[in-house]
């Protein structure tokens, strides 16, 4: 078991350092901070709302992650296949699950770093008023959990192709579908012809509806199970895809 975790950690370590070996990390972190602040202050009207909370900050995260998580994760497998290093990895004494989990965790930890760097907004809102820090902490955790689901989805899509751009596009599209699942536009279209349980199932698949509840400070087991299940399911498919597509 120790050896198993150790190898996963070695993969994680290489991947995480890999983000910082190129300008990718700094560019991403800058873009993330600029966009999240820009959306909070300009689109979210942080000051005009005159409320000591971070709703204006968190409510944009699903849309931000829709683009930025595929940007982080698109290279995870596509690049290994394009450069041929997948042959090195697979012929090492390590399982595909260790490889997939190690790579995913690296990208998830990188996202955690990005979220931690937004802490000045939290400090600002505490300076300006008296927010409910409990809700903010839960929202941060929920945001990171949702980012994990987006990343697992991206990692899975990245194993489908050697081309990072294609990986980015299909990850964004599938992420968009999972966000939109909670919108009335989609639900009313489905409701007209399907039984109630299908509509409810589709609605319950929505990242947006789960994340909205988290933002209100409602963090129940079903939300945790939902995001963790999405992550596990995507990573499981990812492992199968690596096995099937490795030699294409």
């Amino acid at each position: 078991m120790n050896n198993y975790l150790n190898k996963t950690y070695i993969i994680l370590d290489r991947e995480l350092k890999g983000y910082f070996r190129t300008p990718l990390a700094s560019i991403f972190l800058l873009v993330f901070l600029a966009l999240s602040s820009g959306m909070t202050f300009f689109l979210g009207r942080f000051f005009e709302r005159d409320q000591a909370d971070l709703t204006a900050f968190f409510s944009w995260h699903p849309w931000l992650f829709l683009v930025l998580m595929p940007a982080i994760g698109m290279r995870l497998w596509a690049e290994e296949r394009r450069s041929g290093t997948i042959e090195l990895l697979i012929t090492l004494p390590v399982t595909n699950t260790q490889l997939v989990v190690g790579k995913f965790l690296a990208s998830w930890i990188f996202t955690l770093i990005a979220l931690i760097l937004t802490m000045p907004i939290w400090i600002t809102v505490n300076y300006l008023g008296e927010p409910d820090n409990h809700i903010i902490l839960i929202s941060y955790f929920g945001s990171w959990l949702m980012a994990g689901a987006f990343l697992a989805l991206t990692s899975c899509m990245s194993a489908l192709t050697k081309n990072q751009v294609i990986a980015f596009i299909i990850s964004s599209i599938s992420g968009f579908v999972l966000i939109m699942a909670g919108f009335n536009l989609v639900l009313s279209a489905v409701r007209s012809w399907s039984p109630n349980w299908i509509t409810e199932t589709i609605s319950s698949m929505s990242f947006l509806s789960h994340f909205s509840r988290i933002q209100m400070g409602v963090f129940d087991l079903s939300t945790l199970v939902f995001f963790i299940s999405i992550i596990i399911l995507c990573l499981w498919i990812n492992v199968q895809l690596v096995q099937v597509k490795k030699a294409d």
Partner: protein
Amino acid sequence: MSDKLINATNLQKFFDQFIAVDNIDLSVSRGEVVGFLGPNGAGKSTTMKMLTGFLEPDNGEIFINNINLKSDPLKAKEYIGYLPEGAPSYSDMIVADFLSFIGKMRGLNDNSLSNRLEEMANQINLKEMWNRPIETLSKGFKRRVGIAQALIHDPDILILDEPTDGLDPNQKHEMRNLIKRISTNKAIVISTHILEEVEAVCSRAVIISNGKLLANDTPKNLENKFLNKNTLFIKVSNKLNNVISKEIKSLLKYDDVKIQKTDISTHTILVSDSQKNPNLNTVLKQLNKLKLDVIEANFQKLSLEEIFRKITSDNNSK
């Protein structure tokens, strides 16, 4: 228990309807260097990918040091060092970090890792590039890094897919010397289409074409097996002056008789004919009349390259 480090039987691999590897048997013992020869697309790389556990064979079994690769892949892979075609590596990493990463993944502890890294730096001449990003290295150095990652855990088995491809003649020479140096206590399989490489480093040549194994023998045995039936090669320990040479030519009723001085005391006679293959017994009888001392008489040997062309083109025409 078999002393064979690699023992593969009845290997088959299909890609859709196309059969890439067709019933190949291959075994390699410690101390052997097997040269894997074949035209492009013959199935060399596919076979190597199966031996390393990258691809699963559709049929057949592979034992690595008596461990079934299918049932215990992690254990079996520990014994293998593999250089994939094109020597892929993480180009953004520096040489030291890349080799360290592979070493750790191979299960080396801190102590043995630092020893092996030092050995690799010296043995493969990577010292001057040690802290350089791999993407900035020349092709020759990139290939060396690829060899170093395959050797980092001092494996019993080394599988090298075209290790000298794209290298300049000096680099090729260096690479062959390296393979020879490390070959004594390992089982090595190298794929190549450079025939001189096989003659230079391999104790056995395996020729495959269209996924089929066509020959599996030492280069010397292959040369003895595949003789050129069009040309007789006769070596005599006589000094042949012009008069005797003319006599020989008139006595032997064949189109083309060439007489060459081999050294001070010996000459060779090459006999060929465009219409029919020369008959060895008839020629020897004729030469006997001239009281020549024949030291060696046989059909002319083909070079490995000619053997390769003959085998693979015969197979293609079938």
